[in-house]
């Protein structure tokens, strides 16, 4: 459908983008207001921009620590999940094993399970292993909950690679694992990368396990840390908006750089080709 875009269309686009971005715009504008102005007026722009809220966001709460925690947990999760998922996806799409349908079915069905039904036994397991308030305590559940999506996307990518490549590798005397490591995996690199970004974002955003397992302030991740900025007596909107802006920036950068990949990953499961 190649309709030409008219002026009305661009007006619509501008309104649409403005509505979608409005919360971010407003929060940013708030974060540079002096604290007194936040509570006293609905002016869009302040005449006295200040960075006080940013200073407060970093000093009132260990925001840097939250970001470090999130970063470590998400990176480790991404690397391990992508490794495990690409093994599984490769075996499921290209190796002669039995029960492929069953295995894929189990993995996909497990993604539909509500996390709250996993939470309390998982809490007991993690407590039993002494992994509460640690990175590993979060990485373990995170890898697992991202496996279904990762396996699904990677399987789609692996399927697209021609099977002749493997046969010629076999003729050249490559072992099955060498074929995977040296031929198929590099060819699927774009898919692997896409999967990695999606797993990273999912791990970065996870809330329920992080809230439950890492309850010590020094081990909190960004989403949980931000949600703890409110205190019982007052809500420091200045600090919160500054902190929100800070933690949103990495995501905006990630999205701007990798938007095509993200879209292809998100839609790879839902559209038949």
């Amino acid at each position, binding site marked *: 459908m190649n309709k030409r875009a008219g002026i009305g269309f661009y007006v619509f*686009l501008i309104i649409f983008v403005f509505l979608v971005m409005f919360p971010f715009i407003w929060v940013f504008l708030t974060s540079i207001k002096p604290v007194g102005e936040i509570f006293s007026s609905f002016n869009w722009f302040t005449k006295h921009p200040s960075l006080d809220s940013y200073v407060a966001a970093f000093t009132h709460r260990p925001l840097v620590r939250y970001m470090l925690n999130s970063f470590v947990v998400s990176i480790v999760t991404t690397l391990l999940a992508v490794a495990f998922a690409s093994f599984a996806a490769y075996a499921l799409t290209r190796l002669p094993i039995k029960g492929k349908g069953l295995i894929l079915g189990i993995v996909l069905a497990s993604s539909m399970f509500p996390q709250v*039904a996993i939470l309390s036994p998982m809490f007991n397991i993690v407590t039993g292993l002494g992994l509460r308030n640690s990175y590993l305590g979060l990485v373990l559940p995170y890898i697992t909950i991202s496996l279904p999506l990762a396996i699904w996307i990677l399987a789609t990518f692996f399927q697209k690679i021609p099977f002749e490549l493997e046969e010629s590798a076999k003729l050249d005397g490559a072992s099955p*694992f060498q074929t995977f490591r040296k031929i198929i995996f590099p060819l699927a690199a774009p898919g692997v990368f896409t999967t990695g970004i999606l797993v990273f974002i999912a791990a970065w955003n996870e809330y329920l396990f992080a809230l439950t397992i890492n309850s010590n302030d020094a081990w909190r991740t960004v989403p949980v840390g931000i949600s703890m900025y409110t205190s019982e007596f007052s809500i420091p909107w200045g600090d919160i908006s500054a902190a*929100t802006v800070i933690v949103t920036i990495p995501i905006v950068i990630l999205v701007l750089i990798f938007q095509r990949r993200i879209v292809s990953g998100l839609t790879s499961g839902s559209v038949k080709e």
Partner: protein
Amino acid sequence: MKKRRFQLNEKQLGYAMVLPSLILVFVVILWPVAQSFWNSLFDYRLNDPTRSEKMMHANIDLEKYVDNHFFIEKQLDELADATDREQDKQTISKIKTGIEKYHSELLSDKQVEKKVEKVNDLLMAYKPVNDSELKYQQVDNDFAAAYRKALSSYQHDLENIAESLDGKEVQSDFQQTAELLGATNRSILKSNFIGVDNYKKYFKDKRMWRSLGNTTLFTVISVFFELVLGLLVALLINRAFKGRGLIRASVLIPWAVPTAVAAMMWGFLYDGQSGIVAHYLEVLHIVPSSSWLLSTGNGGLFSIILADVWKTTPYMALLILAGLQTIPGSLYEASNVDGASKLQQFFKITLPLLKSSILVALLFRTLDAFRVFDLIYVLTGGGPANSTESISVYAYKTMFSQQNFGEGSTLSVIVFLCVALISFIYVKLIGSELFAGRTK
């Protein structure tokens, strides 16, 4: 001859490669879900020492039992000497023989006797009993119940005597021994296996039905708006224009921001005093007052749904857009030649061909929406007065604020069953659709 390296054949390699994922899925997802089912059958509370373990059978905490039992005989003898009334002496000797009877019945099992001796030795040496094999002795449910009943009636007897007596010192002696019997009673742990009692309880629980209602309402309304708006946006931007990258990025950012962070942002926008959205909605008379949004149940649900529609419509639009782009343009050209109107094209071409992408997107969204936790927990905390609670939030609060894992697991199993039902319905709908696509 060249040394041949150890090599897996393709089949072995295949199994070895799926193994890590399968193990993780079993250990972290399937096993915990099974555990949740199991836990929901118990009166299982972390903050109550007598119920912090799941016990199919009654148990005796031998450490406490032996420690308390040791003093009973001596104290009863002293009490018998302290009172002059024949009636009281009789009661005391009845208690003594009663307890002796139960105690010797307990020790009639040679194994138990040995364990009791061991525990006794440890206690004499002032050492704690750390080995849970030694500490807990499983006993017959009926025996435990009878023993507990006897002990509590003895305790009652002694308390009655204490009340009828004059003299503070004697009274407190009797009270103390009554307390000792109470402590002994508490060392005999009832089985906390209660079958489906938790489910029966929640079946009649108003808060459960309300949270289930909220969850359903939230799911239906927000998924409906996300679908309609998403379809609209997808249709509008499915054309060639400048600045596609900008649109794509602005659509992806709300999706990529953590829900908890988005909820904090909206919490600010909805704030009764300084929230701009609350302010404008009030000025435009869309809401009765700016504080209505977060301080009433209906306002809270409205706020939650609006925030969710904002966060997820773009994602829905993307999925539908991907589906739209697979529809060949030639179909529209042909229908143009046949003189079909735009509306006819939409209903006869676009919608039927989009059906399977829409159903898949709907499946994911419905399941996600039904499990909603972060948004509600951060934005309203389920309040005011639990009126915006979703079933997941209710389950979480029961498990981790009240430390009641038994009842909390029951609620999470209810979420599980609802989600299973929803998936089943969708898979029935989509299954045939996908199958038709495959066999083409």
